[in-house]
C-alpha cells in the first residue's frame, strides 16, 4: 500500500459492474453454454446411462463453488475478520448461485433413467419392491439378501438410504445453502441502505449458528451424491475431503474473478496486493489441507487393506486411472505447494492467476477422478469407451458456461463491495 485510504477516497455507493464492459466474456459464455445445452439434450436422449455420470461430474464441480462461497462468507463473518470485506460481496454472489445450480441438479432429481444409472442402490430397491409381496422394499431386500449378501447392506441402512429420505435431503441441501447465502447477502445489502452496524453483528451470530448446518449439508451432500455411487463403500473422512476441495477451488475462482474485474477497471482502489497475498495464503493453506485429508484417507485404507473399503482405491489405481491418481498427487499438491510457498510471488496478480487456473484444472480432475471411474472400470483412460469423454466435456461446458454467464450477467445488481461495511477501511488498508 502506497498510502492510507480513507472513506473519502472511495466512491459513495461503491462500484457498480457494467455487463456491457464484459461482453467479450459474457456473450461467448452464453454461446458455448447454449451449444452445450443442445449437446446435453442429445446425450440425455441418446446415451442417458453414460451421460448421467458426465452430468453428475459437471454439476458437482459447479456445486462445489457454491458450497465454497457459502463457507467463505460464513467463515468471514464468524471469525469477525476484516481483510475480506472488499471481496465478500463477490463470495456472497457466488453463494447465491444456489437456485441456478439447483436447476442443473434437476435431471438427477427428476429423471429416473439418470438416477438409476448413477445409483445402483435405487435399482436394487426397485427390484426389491417388485420382489416383495406387498411392495415393501425393506422386506424385499431382506429376501434378496439370502441369495445376494450385498443386499444385506442395503437392508441394514434402509433407514438412511431410501428414496423418500433421499429426495427430502436433496431438497434440504439446497434450502440450507440458499438460506445461508440469501440471509447473509440480505443483511449486507440492508446495511448499504441504513448504514447500521448491527447488521454486521447479526451476521456474525447467524454465521456461527449456521456453520453447523453448513457442515452437515456439505457432508451429507457429498455422501449422497458421490459416496452413494457405490453403496458398499464408506469413509468417515469423505465429507471433510469434499469440503477441502470446495474451499480450495472457490478461493481460486475468486482470485480469477477479482483479477478479471480489476482488468476491467473495477476494485482497483480497494483490492491491493495484500489481498492477493492473503487469498494466495489461503489457497496455499487449503492445498496442504486437501493433501493432508486425501493422504490420510488413502493411507489408512491402504494400510488396513480390508475388502470393505479398498474398492474405491482399487478402481482408481488400476488401468488408466492410476495415472490420473498420480497426476492428482503431483498437480493437486506437490506443484502448487512448491510455487505458492513464496511470499513475493503470491503478491503478483499475474502469477497468482496462473495458479488459480491451475487449481481449477486440478479440481476438475479431482471431481472427474471421483465420479467417472464409477461409470465402469472399462471406461478407464487406458481403454476409454469411444466418445465417452466428449459427453463429459459437453456437460461441463454446459453447466459451467451457463452458470458463469448468469453469474456475470447478474453481477450488476449491487455494488461490487459492501461500501457501508464498518470494517471496509480496515479491509482496504490491510497489511499482513
Amino acid at each position: 500500500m502506497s498510502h492510507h485510504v480513507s472513506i473519502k477516497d472511495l466512491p459513495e455507493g461503491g462500484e457498480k459492474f457494467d455487463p456491457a464492459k464484459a461482453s467479450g466474456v459474457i456473450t461467448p459464455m452464453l454461446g458455448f453454454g447454449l451449444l452445450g445445452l443442445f449437446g446435453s439434450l442429445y446425450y440425455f436422449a441418446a446415451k442417458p446411462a453414460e451421460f448421467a455420470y458426465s452430468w453428475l461430474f459437471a454439476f458437482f464441480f459447479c456445486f462445489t463453488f457454491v458450497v465454497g462461497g457459502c463457507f467463505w462468507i460464513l467463515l468471514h463473518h464468524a471469525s469477525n475478520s476484516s481483510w475480506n470485506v472488499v471481496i465478500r460481496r463477490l463470495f456472497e454472489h457466488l453463494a447465491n448461485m444456489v437456485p441456478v445450480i439447483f436447476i442443473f441438479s434437476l435431471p438427477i432429481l427428476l429423471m429416473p433413467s439418470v438416477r438409476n444409472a448413477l445409483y445402483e442402490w435405487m435399482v436394487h430397491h426397485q427390484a426389491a419392491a417388485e420382489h416383495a409381496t406387498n411392495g415393501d422394499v425393506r422386506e424385499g431386500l431382506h429376501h434378496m439378501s439370502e441369495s445376494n449378501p450385498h443386499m444385506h447392506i442395503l437392508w441394514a441402512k434402509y433407514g438412511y438410504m431410501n428414496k423418500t429420505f433421499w429426495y427430502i435431503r436433496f431438497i434440504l441441501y439446497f434450502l440450507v445453502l440458499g438460506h445461508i447465502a440469501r440471509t447473509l447477502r440480505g443483511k449486507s445489502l440492508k446495511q448499504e441502505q441504513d448504514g447500521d452496524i448491527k447488521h454486521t453483528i447479526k451476521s456474525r451470530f447467524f454465521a456461527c449458528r449456521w456453520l453447523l448446518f453448513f457442515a452437515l449439508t456439505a457432508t451429507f451432500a457429498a455422501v449422497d451424491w458421490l459416496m452413494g455411487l457405490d453403496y458398499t463403500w464408506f469413509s468417515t473422512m469423505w465429507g471433510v475431503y469434499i469440503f477441502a476441495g470446495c474451499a480450495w477451488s472457490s478461493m481460486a475462482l475468486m482470485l480469477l474473478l477479482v483479477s478479471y474485474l480489476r482488468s476491467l477497471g473495477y476494485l482497483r482502489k480497494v483490492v491491493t496486493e495484500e489481498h492477493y497475498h492473503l487469498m494466495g495464503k489461503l489457497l496455499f493453506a487449503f492445498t496442504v489441507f486437501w493433501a493432508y485429508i486425501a493422504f490420510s484417507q488413502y493411507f489408512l485404507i491402504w494400510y488396513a487393506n480390508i475388502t470393505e473399503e479398498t474398492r474405491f482405491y482399487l478402481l482408481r489405481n488400476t488401468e488408466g486411472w492410476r495415472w490420473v491418481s498420480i497426476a492428482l498427487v503431483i498437480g493437486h499438491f506437490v506443484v502448487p505447494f512448491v510455487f505458492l510457498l513464496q511470499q513475493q510471488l503470491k503478491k503478483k496478480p499475474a502469477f497468482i492467476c496462473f495458479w488459480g487456473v491451475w487449481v481449477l484444472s486440478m479440481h476438475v480432475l479431482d471431481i472427474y477422478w471421483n465420479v467417472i471411474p464409477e461409470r465402469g472400470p472399462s471406461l478407464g483412460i487406458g481403454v476409454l469407451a469411444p466418445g465417452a469423454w466428449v459427453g463429459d466435456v459437453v456437460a461441463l461446458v454446459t453447466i459451467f458456461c451457463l452458470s458463469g454467464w448468469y453469474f456475470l450477467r447478474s453481477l450488476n445488481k449491487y455494488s461490487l463491495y459492501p461500501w457501508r461495511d464498518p470494517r471496509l477501511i480496515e479491509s482496504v488498508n490491510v497489511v499482513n
Partner: protein
Amino acid sequence: MEATATAPASSSAPATPRILEREPLVLNHRSYSWITNRICGIVENKQPGLWWALFIPSVILAGVMVFCFTYLIAAGVGVWGQKQPVAWAWDITNFVFWIGIGHAGTLISAILFLTRQKWRTSVNRAAEAMTIFAVMCAGVYPMFHVGRVWMVWFLAPIPNANAIWQNFKSPLLWDVFAVSTYFSVSVVFWYIGLVPDLATLRDRCKPGLKKLLYGMFALGWRGANRHWSHYETAYMLLAALSTPLVLSVHSVVSFDFATSVVPGWHTTIFPPYFVAGAIFGGFAMVLTLMIPCRKIYGLQDLITPKHIDNMAKIILLTGTIVGYAYCMELFMAYYSASPYEGAAFKLRTLDGPSVWYYYAMFFCNVISPQLFWFRWARHNMWTVMAVSMCVNAGMWYERYVIIVTTLEVHMTPGAWRTFHATWVDNWTFIGTFGFFMMNFLLFLRFLPVIAIGEVKGVLPESNPHHDPHGEKGVQEEDLMGYPDRHVPKAANA
C-alpha cells in the same frame, strides 16, 4: 459514541460508513514500562504463599511418579492393570492425553502467528512452556511401557549389538520420530522467543549468578535493529516449521490406532479428529492454568476477558468438530452396515461394560462447551474454569473410550475382560500431574510468563500509523449494551 449506540437504524444515517473498532488487547492504556515491570516483577519479587502451597505438593507428587516408575522397573510392567486383551490401557491413554495437551502451545505460537492473530502474544509463552512439560509427561509412558526402559534406545535407528533394525512399517516407530521432533522444535521455538526477554531480565538483575545465567542464555542480545531483524526471520521460519508438526504429531498418534483393523479404531477421520481434539484439550489446559495465574499475579490487563473469550470460542469450535467426528463415527458404523463396526459402537454406547465412559466423554467434550455459545459464560471466569475442567476430564475419557473400552470387548467374546486400574496406574498418573505442575511453577518462578517484547508490539502506540487524536469509531460493546463491558480505568502505577 453514545448517540451511535442508541441511534435507530434509519435512512437519516450518514452515507459514509462508520468504523467498528477492535477491542484493545492491553487494557487501561498500560505503558511499555508498566508491562516490563509487571512481568519481570513476577520473577524478581518473592513468590506468593499460594505458589509454595502448590509447589510443595507438586514436588511430592513428582516424587511419587518417580517411585512408581522405580517400582515398575523392579517388579515389571505387570504392576499396571493391563492384561490381554487390554494390552494398552492407562499408559497409552495417558500418553495420548498429555500429547494432546501439548498441542495448544505450538498452535498458539505457530499457527496463530502465521494467521496474524495478535491476541496470541499474551498467552503464547505460558502455553509453549506447558507444551514442553506436557510432552515430557507423555514421553515417559511409552518409554516405560516397552518393559525394559534401559533398552529404549533400541527405538533409535542406530547400530546396536544385536543388529536389530527398527520396524519402519510400524506407526509406533513413527511416533518416536514425530514426538521427538515436535519436542525438539517446540523447545527451540520457545527458547528463541525467550531470548529478548531473558536479556531484559539480565539487564534488571544485580551482578551475580542470576545475571550470569540470564546473560548466558540471552546470547548477547542488545536489542539492536539487526538482532530484531534476525530474530523475526528466525521466529517466522520456526513458526512455519512448527505448523506441520502441530498436525503431524497427533496425526501419527492417531495412526497408532487407525492403521489397525480393530473395529472402533480403524476409521479414516481419525487424523483430523485427533488434531482437533488435541487443540481442544490443549486450550482447556491453557485456560486452567492461565485464569488462576492472571489473578494471582495481577495480569488482568494483559490477559484480558477478550483473550479468555477467544480461547473459549476456540474450545467451542474444536469441541464441535470433535462432536462432528463422534457423530460421523456412529453414522458410518451404521451406514457401512459392517457387523463388526456396528457391534463395536453398540458395545461402546449401549451395552458394553464401560458405557458410562462414553457418555461422560460426550457430555464433557460436546455438551459442556456448548455453554460457550453464551457471552456471559465466556466472560464468567468460574464458568470458563468449570468447562475447561470438564474438557480436561473429557479428553482423558475420550482416549480411555478409544483405547480401553474397545479392547475390553474386542472380537472374541470368550476373551473379553474388563480393565481395572491398579494403585500404580493411579499414582503414576497423579504423579505426572505433580511433575507437570512442578515444572510449570518453576517456569513461573524463573522465566517471564508473558512475552514482554511481543505484547508491547500489539499496543496501539507501537503502530507507526497510530494517531491518538484520530476519529474514534464505534465499540462493539457499546452497540450490544453488555453490562460487564470493560471501561478503561485510570491507570495506576
